[in-house]
C-alpha cells in the first residue's frame, strides 16, 4: 500500500513539475513583453522609466535566461511567494485563497449533485438495458455531453431568472442580505450547469460498468447460490460497479476546473474562474501563473486522492503491500 501511494505521489509530482514548465514556457515564449501594458500610459497613468521597468522585471523574476527565470519562479512558488498581483497590488496567493471558498463550494456542490443524480440513473439504465427507461436516460446523457455549458447557463437564466423570476441570475449574494439560503439560491443554477457534463459522463460510465459486471460469471455463481436479483445487485454488483467510478471522478477534475471558468463567467460567480478571466484580460501576469498552477494542483490532487481512495477500497490493490 505504502509503495502504491509513494509511486502515485511521485508520478503526481513529476506531472506537476512538467505542467509548471509548460505553463511557464507558454508565457515565457509568448511574443510580447508582459510588461508591455505597463509601458503605456493607460495602465499606470504615465510612462514607466527604463529603471522602473528593470526593477519591475527583477521583482517579477523576468530577468535572466529561461532556466534561471523558471527556477527562481518555481522556488518562490514552493515557498508560498506567488508574487504580487499587478492589478490589485495584493499577494497573489492571498487573492487566490480569498476566492477559493466560492469556487470549491461550487465545485463540491456540483460534484455531489452529479453523483447523486448519476448513480441511480446509471444503475437503472444498466440493469434495464435497452428498455424504454434506458433509452430515455441515454437520450439525457447524449444531450448532457453535447450541451455547451455556457449556452445552457444562458437559457436557464432566461427561463428561471428572467421569465419566472425564481432564481437570481448572477453573483453569489444579494447586496445587503446575509444568509446561507441566499447563497444557495445563487448557487443552484451555476451548480446545475457545472454538473451536467460530468453527470452525463458518470451515468454512461456506471451504465456500461453495470452491464459488464452483470455479465461476469460471479453473478452466475451468486444466482446459483439462490440469491435473488436484488441481493445480487446490492450484495455483489454494486460494489464492483462503484469502485472504478472513484477513478473516473478523479479524472473529471479537469473538466470541473475549466468548467468552473466558463460557468463563473456566465453567472458572474465571484470565484477563481472570474478572477482568472479578469486577470487574463488584464494581463495580470503573476496572477495568471498563480491561477494556472493552482488549478493544475487542484486537478492533480483530485486525481491523486481518487487513486488513493481506490487503493483503499479495492482489496485487489492491497496485494501491493506484500
Amino acid at each position: 500500500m505504502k509503495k502504491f501511494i509513494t509511486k502515485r505521489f511521485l508520478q503526481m509530482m513529476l506531472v506537476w513539475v512538467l505542467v509548471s514548465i509548460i505553463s511557464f514556457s507558454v508565457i515565457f515564449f509568448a511574443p510580447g513583453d508582459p510588461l508591455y501594458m505597463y509601458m503605456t500610459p493607460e495602465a499606470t497613468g504615465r510612462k514607466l522609466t527604463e529603471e522602473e521597468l528593470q526593477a519591475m522585471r527583477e521583482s517579477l523574476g523576468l530577468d535572466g535566461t529561461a532556466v534561471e527565470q523558471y527556477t527562481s519562479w518555481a522556488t518562490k512558488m514552493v515557498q508560498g511567494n506567488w508574487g504580487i498581483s499587478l492589478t490589485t497590488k495584493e499577494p497573489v496567493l492571498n487573492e487566490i485563497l480569498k476566492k477559493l471558498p466560492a469556487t470549491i463550494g461550487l465545485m463540491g456542490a456540483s460534484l455531489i449533485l452529479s453523483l447523486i443524480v448519476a448513480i441511480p440513473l446509471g444503475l437503472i439504465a444498466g440493469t434495464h438495458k435497452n428498455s424504454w427507461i434506458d433509452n430515455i436516460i441515454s437520450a439525457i446523457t447524449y444531450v448532457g455531453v453535447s450541451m455547451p455549458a455556457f449556452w445552457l447557463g444562458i437559457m436557464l437564466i432566461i427561463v428561471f431568472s428572467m421569465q419566472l423570476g425564481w432564481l437570481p441570475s448572477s453573483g453569489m449574494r444579494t447586496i445587503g442580505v446575509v444568509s446561507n439560503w441566499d447563497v444557495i439560491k445563487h448557487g443552484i443554477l451555476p451548480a446545475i450547469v457545472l454538473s451536467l457534463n460530468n453527470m452525463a459522463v458518470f451515468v454512461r460510465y456506471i451504465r456500461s460498468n453495470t452491464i459488464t459486471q452483470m455479465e461476469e460469471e460471479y453473478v452466475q455463481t451468486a444466482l446459483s447460490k439462490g440469491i435473488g436479483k436484488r441481493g445480487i445487485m446490492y450484495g455483489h454488483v454494486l460494489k464492483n460497479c462503484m469502485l472504478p467510478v472513484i477513478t473516473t471522478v478523479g479524472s473529471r477534475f479537469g473538466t470541473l476546473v475549466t468548467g468552473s471558468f466558463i460557468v463563473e463567467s456566465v453567472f458572474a460567480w465571484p470565484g477563481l474562474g472570474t478572477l482568472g478571466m479578469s486577470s487574463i484580460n488584464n494581463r495580470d501576469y503573476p496572477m495568471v501563473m498563480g491561477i494556472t498552477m493552482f488549478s493544475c494542483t487542484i486537478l492533480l490532487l483530485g486525481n491523486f486522492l481518487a487513486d488513493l481512495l481506490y487503493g483503499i477500497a479495492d482489496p485487489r490493490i492491497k496485494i501491493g503491500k506484500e
Partner: protein
Amino acid sequence: MAKLLTPLDKAAIRAEDFAKAVKDENKVEASFERTVFQQLVSSFRQNKLAILCLIVLLTIILSSIFAFLSPYDPDEMDVMNKMAGPSAEHWFGTDELGRDSFTRALYGGRVSLSVGFSAMVVSVIIGTLIGSVSGYVGGKVDAVLMRVVDIFQSVPSLLMIIVFFSFVPSNMVTLIIMLALFSWTGVARIVRAQTLTLKERDFVVAAKVLGVSHAKIIMRHIVPNMATQIIVAASLSVAGAILDESALSFLGYGVALPKSSWGSMLQNAQQYILYDPLLALIPGAFILLTVLCLNILGDVLQHALDPRLHK
C-alpha cells in the same frame, strides 16, 4: 440384437439409401461472418436514430457550405429592422444591428465546422503518428510517449489555451493548432492499443520477415487496418473541438471579429438576452444539434465495430 426405440416410417426408408455416401470435399459451409463494412451498413439501417442524425448533420454542413444562396448578406445591417422577431423574411429574426440571424448562423457554422473538422484532422494525424509509433516500437519510447499523453491529459486544456491566447492573437490557424494540441491524446491511446494487437498479427509479422521497412509497415499494414476505430475517434473529436471552440469564442478567445462562429455569436447575444432571448437560442441550438449528432454517430459506429454487442 439392438432394440429400436424410435418409431420409424418404414416406407420412407429404402435399402439403397444405406450405400456409403460420397462426400464432396469442396463443399464449404455457409459463413456467418460479416465484414466490418456490412456491419456498419446494417447497424445504420437498423438504427433510425443514426440515419436521422446523419441527415441532420449533412443538412447543417450543406447549408453552411451553400450559405451564400441566402438572400441576405451576413454583415448587412438594417437598423430599421433590428431585433425583429421571426417572420417570413427573417426566419429567426434579426440581431441588434438588424442582420439576419439565420444567415449569420449559417455563416457562423462555416467557421465552427471548419475549425472543428480541421482541428480533428490535425489531432488525428498527431494522435495516429504518436500512437502507432508508441505501440509499434514499444519499450522506452512507448513509456516516454505515454507519459507525455498523461501530462497532456492532466492539464486543464481550455485554461491553457486561454492563457496562450491572451498573449498570442487568435486566428483560425492558431486556434486549430491549439485545439488539436490538447485533443490528440485520446486518438493516440486508441491507436496505440490497436497497434499493440495488430503488430502481433500474422500479416505484420510476415511483412517484417520480408524486410519491409518499419515506416512502411506502420503506414501500409497497421494504420489502414484500424481505419474504422480512427473514424470513431475522429467523429467524437470533431464534437469535442466544436464544443471547445464555442466555449473559447464565448469567453472572447476564439476567432477574431469580424468573423464570427456560433460561440462568438452567443457571446454577443448574451448582452441582449433581456431584450431578445431568441438571439441566444439559435447559435446554441446549432451547436447542440451538431455536437449531439456527431456524438450519436460516433457511438453507433463504435457499437457496430464492437463484436461483443452482436452476440
